[in-house]
């Protein structure tokens, strides 16, 4: 929603008009050390407590502290809040809070035409302007004419606020992000008390710091109240949400918590063997915090040791996890084969990033799908599920663990950088309401126990845990005779085992939900997606439907196997388009499995999410084609 400032409202204090908005996208950008992540988080919390739905996404460089005042060092945080259901972090922003010329330079392209720019005029000195790559001062050369500027001397006013408290300039300046936040709170009519409480908790032992931050935040708020450039305030009314208890959750945290929940529901201790890699590392860090829940975290010497330790833990009866991103998944390939061959349960999490090779480590992509499906030697099927949003990642992690444990097979959970780093509101479930997980553990001295004797329905073998009497057995990477588990090179047995391993995974179809359709089950166009694109596609489909177009959306969370009714879903539509953040991987798979349908595709591989406009444009074009 665009914020339009009416120039006629140049009003005295307290009488500025208040305008209701459906939703607002705010982006905070500044130098890596400017505290943009913090103000972004504080703003999100305030909006959430004020009843808005929201989604957030941090946008930071791969460098920890790139040179000061350069475009390379710009760190950002985007927040989308609304009265309506928030499904994405927003394509373009309504308000851009920029702390220096470099951040303006690098982020102006993400501001809507007519967006409000809150600028720290003190930072626009000739040196910084030149360092940012401007040939002239953008505040003076009329290049920002199509935007609404709130020019605020943020640095100097922050110093002033500090001076009153006897704080030196350098110390005071550290809080200038709070001045900007204060302006924003006024502009969007948000209360300050939640942020005040944050200061009180965070700096409990430093009363001076509490005082300073409160004073600066208030000063920013008061500045906005007084300044003529802000002629009206905006309000985003409370969203109508399902009743319940809520929190904000980051995708990587949600994955970690989903596994902890699965561990409790299955009674299997949680073991993570992992190696740090962007953008998956936060799952490792989060799980490391939860020893009180019995979580064992092994930070291995490399990706291979990460998964191999998980295989060892799986053999002993743990819910074994390994987490990684694309390059790490490549390294784990051989070991995934061992887990498939030994038919041990484990979850491999791939938080995808731009590839190939090191690629775009902090950017998001959906380009590991074919690697997940086929990237191993031999016939090597695994279950694959995909998360579609930060909160959904909690449930998909739980589901991945449940499927792995109950079907005795490695399962891959595909996430993406935008999901891992992004956040949204999460309705807190009760652990007891989550499904039970019942792994097929063999009993002590079970008569006729054989390592590869299978349940006839599911083809699942039993899990015999070391230490259990009467069940000593060996597993390994060599092909085994079915039932007995003795090493075998018999040609027909190998054929049988290859078939059994594939069928076992295929039979998971009987245990996963049917594919849902958003919109009508029949129509002119079915839009297919998977992973993080759900929100953008749904907004686009909503727009199409509002315009009377017969468009529906099928978003896949289960990739291998696909839901049973997938071909029936496809059959209800005249045209099908598959939208992915890769060059066409899911469509490749669908064409292979269901060649009877004709597919169109829309792909983008820029390390960026879809924006709604580009999708609606493509959908309209497809509908118009003969």
């Amino acid at each position, binding site marked *: 929603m665009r914020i339009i400032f009416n120039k006629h409202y140049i009003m005295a204090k307290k009488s500025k008009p208040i305008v209701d908005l459906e939703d607002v996208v705010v982006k905070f950008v500044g130098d890596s050390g400017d505290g943009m992540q913090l103000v972004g988080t504080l703003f999100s919390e305030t909006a959430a*407590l004020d009843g808005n739905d929201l989604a957030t996404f941090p946008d930071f460089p791969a460098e920890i502290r790139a040179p000061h005042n350069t475009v390379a060092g710009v760190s950002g945080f985007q927040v989308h809040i609304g009265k309506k259901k928030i499904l994405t972090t927003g394509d373009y922003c309504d308000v851009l809070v920029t702390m220096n010329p470099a951040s303006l330079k690098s982020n102006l392209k993400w501001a809507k035409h007519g967006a409000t720019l809150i600028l720290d005029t003190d930072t626009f000195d000739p040196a910084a302007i030149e360092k940012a790559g401007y040939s002239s001062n953008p505040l003076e050369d009329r290049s920002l004419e199509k935007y609404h500027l709130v020019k605020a001397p943020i640095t100097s006013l922050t110093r002033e606020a500090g001076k009153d408290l006897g704080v030196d300039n350098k110390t005071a300046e550290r809080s200038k992000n709070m001045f900007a936040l204060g302006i924003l709170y006024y502009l969007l009519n948000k209360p300050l008390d939640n942020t005040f409480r944050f200061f009180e908790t965070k700096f409990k032992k430093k009363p001076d710091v509490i005082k300073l931050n409160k004073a600066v935040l208030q000063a920013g708020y008061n500045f906005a109240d007084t300044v003529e450039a802000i002629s009206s305030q905006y309000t985003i009314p409370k969203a109508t949400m399902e009743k319940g208890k809520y929190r904000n959750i980051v995708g990587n945290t949600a994955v970690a918590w989903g596994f902890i929940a699965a561990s409790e529901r299955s009674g299997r201790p949680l073991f993570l063997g992992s190696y740090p890699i962007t953008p998956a590392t936060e799952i490792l860090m989060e799980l490391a915090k939860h020893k009180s829940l019995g979580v064992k975290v092994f930070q291995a010497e490399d990706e291979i040791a990460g998964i191999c*330790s998980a295989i*060892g833990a*799986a053999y002993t009866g743990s819910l074994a996890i390994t987490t990684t991103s694309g390059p790490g998944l490549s390294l784990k390939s051989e070991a995934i084969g061992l887990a498939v061959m030994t038919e041990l349960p484990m979850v491999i999490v791939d938080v995808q990033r731009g590839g190939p090779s090191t690629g775009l480590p902090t950017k998001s992509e959906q380009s590991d799908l074919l690697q997940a499906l086929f990237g191993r030697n031999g016939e090597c099927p695994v279950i694959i599920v995909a998360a579609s949003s930060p909160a959904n990642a909690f449930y998909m992690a739980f589901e991945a663990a449940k499927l792995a444990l109950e079907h005795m097979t490695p399962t891959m959970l595909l996430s993406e950088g935008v999901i891992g780093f992004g956040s949204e509101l999460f309705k807190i479930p009760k*652990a007891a309401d989550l499904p039970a997980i019942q792994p097929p553990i063999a009993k002590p001295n079970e008569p006729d126990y054989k390592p590869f004797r299978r349940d006839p329905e599911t083809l699942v073998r039993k899990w015999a845990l070391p230490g259990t009497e009467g069940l000593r057995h060996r597993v390994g990477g060599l092909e085994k005779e079915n039932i007995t588990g003795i090493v075998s090179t018999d040609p027909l047995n190998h054929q049988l085992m290859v078939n059994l391993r594939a069928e076992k995974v295929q039979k998971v179809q009987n245990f996963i939900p049917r594919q849902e359709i958003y919109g009508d089950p029949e129509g002119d166009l079915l839009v297919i997606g998977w992973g993080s694109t759900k929100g953008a596609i749904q907004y686009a489909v909503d727009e199409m439907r509002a315009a009377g177009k017969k468009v529906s959306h099928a978003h896949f969370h289960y990739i291998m196997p696909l839901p049973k009714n997938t071909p029936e879903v496809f059959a209800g539509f005249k045209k099908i388009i598959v939208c992915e953040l890769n060059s066409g991987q899911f469509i490749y798979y669908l064409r292979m499995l269901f060649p009877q349908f004709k597919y169109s595709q829309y792909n983008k591989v820029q390390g960026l999410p879809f924006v709604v406009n580009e999708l609606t444009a493509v959908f309209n074009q497809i509908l118009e084609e003969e």
Partner: protein
Amino acid sequence: MFERPENTTIERSSVELTKQDFVSDQMVKWCPGCGAHAILSSVANVFPKIGYKKENFVMVSGIGCSSRFPYYVNTYGIHGIHGRAAAISSGVKIANPHLSVWVATGDGDSLAIGGNHFIHVIRRNIDLNIILFNNQIYGLTKGQYSPTTPMGMVTKTSPQGTIEHPFNIGELVMGAQGTFFARAVDTNPKLMTEIMFEAAKHDGTSLIEILQNCIIFADGAHQQVTAKDIKDDFQLVLKNGEPMIFGKNKDKGIRFFSNRLEVVQLGENGITENDLLIHDKYQQDPGVHLMLAKMAPPMFPVALGVIRSAMYPTYDDMVEEQIAYAKENNPVKTVDDLLNSGDTWVI
């Protein structure tokens, strides 16, 4: 003869076990005359003596001739992938410290493709017992040089002789801050059994190097140490607390002189037992242990037996301690506690 191990984490067998309890029903497919047969026999001999419940042993391996081991001993076991036994077994032990975890590996498996895992498992001091079959050759792939093949040796991939400096396994173990290093030759089952027992007793990563003969591709690789006529002069079997004496006539010794080790003749130049080094395997400082591990013919005998057995906290114990502490002190006890921690609000 054998004292009971002190480890109380692993449940003991309520009945007396014998070698038969650990014999597998699988055909052993190593070449006739291979040194691995003797290692297998020693393991089957020592497991009942260690006294743990037979279901509490787990044998893990990688790839190579040595790594077929889990199929040949009746325990729980994982035949892993090349080089990764150290990583797989780390997961087994950390996940369930109540198991006695053993690794069978070779010089190629552990020191080439698995070199990274090898140094890290030792550095962490996870309570594992690693038996490294050092035959100085790749056997299963039919005769290529390995990281322990002596420089200059002609193999299938070094027709003019290798141009690589070999690893000394003991040196690598000490360099990685290893707490236990022992060595035996495959022709001495008694010594093998003794050091395996000591390894089981040791809390931490125990590395047992077996100088093993590959009868097909590197036959006689350890001849300088194991040949009948010279072995007494080139094997120093270390005994803790005793002076380092060796030789057919027990008349040679090792002393520390002028900042290095030196072989001396007892009775010559007034040298007596009192001049010799007394073996102290428990010493924390690995300096002498390293010098002992590096001794090699023709100047020195090869040191056998337990060279180092130093006490350090183990990774697996510390994991359990941290978990116990967290369970005691962290208010988050359940998933519900976790989900409701931090900022939440009701709508």
